[in-house]
């Protein structure tokens, strides 16, 4: 087994995924998603795949979160559309 830290990361990932799915506020979801990507990068480092970890950290946490922020900035922040 990859140790209790690895298992902890996996549980955190599952929780993050569910939180992203459930929250109505997209900005909160984006932030949780950034955390999700970072922990995923850490998991991969645990699984001895550093290249992938760096790329995931940079692309997943970095760029994807930026993209989501830009999209939300230019459209609508919350999921339920009162208008």
């Amino acid at each position, binding site marked *: 087994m990859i140790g209790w830290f*690895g298992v902890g990361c996996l549980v955190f990932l599952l929780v993050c995924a569910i939180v992203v799915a459930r929250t109505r506020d997209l900005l909160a979801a984006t932030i949780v998603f950034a955390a999700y990507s970072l922990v995923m990068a850490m998991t991969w480092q645990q699984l001895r795949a550093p290249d992938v970890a760096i790329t*995931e950290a940079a*692309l997943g946490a970095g760029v994807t979160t930026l*993209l989501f922020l830009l999209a939300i900035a230019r459209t609508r922040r919350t999921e339920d559309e009162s208008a």
Partner: protein
Amino acid sequence: MLSLDLFLRLNYLASIMLFLIGLHTMLTHANLIKKVMGMNIMETGIFLFLVSIGYAHGTLSPIIRQSGPEQGLIYTNPLLAAIVLTGIVIAVSTTAYALSIIIKLYEQCGTLDVDRLEKLRS
């Protein structure tokens, strides 16, 4: 049927559950941005599955420390790392393109809700 040694395969289980959560989010949520997030979660789930296939206990990252015979025992599988790397980049480009369509759609019809878009369309 799901025997106890499932705990040994926790990684596989976690990645499959992530894949399913992502798929479920994509299919059930009406908001387009939430769908794209679901897509990302689904794809990272698959990448986790891929990476955990190549891992073996007590192995190091596939940077060759010193050349010699029997390298297979001390490093993880580099091929899967290459595949996941390509996969991540594909996932990001799909996300970027999907978000640009979403922004353009929002400009056209002011809503991100799939059901409202359907009504507007017909």
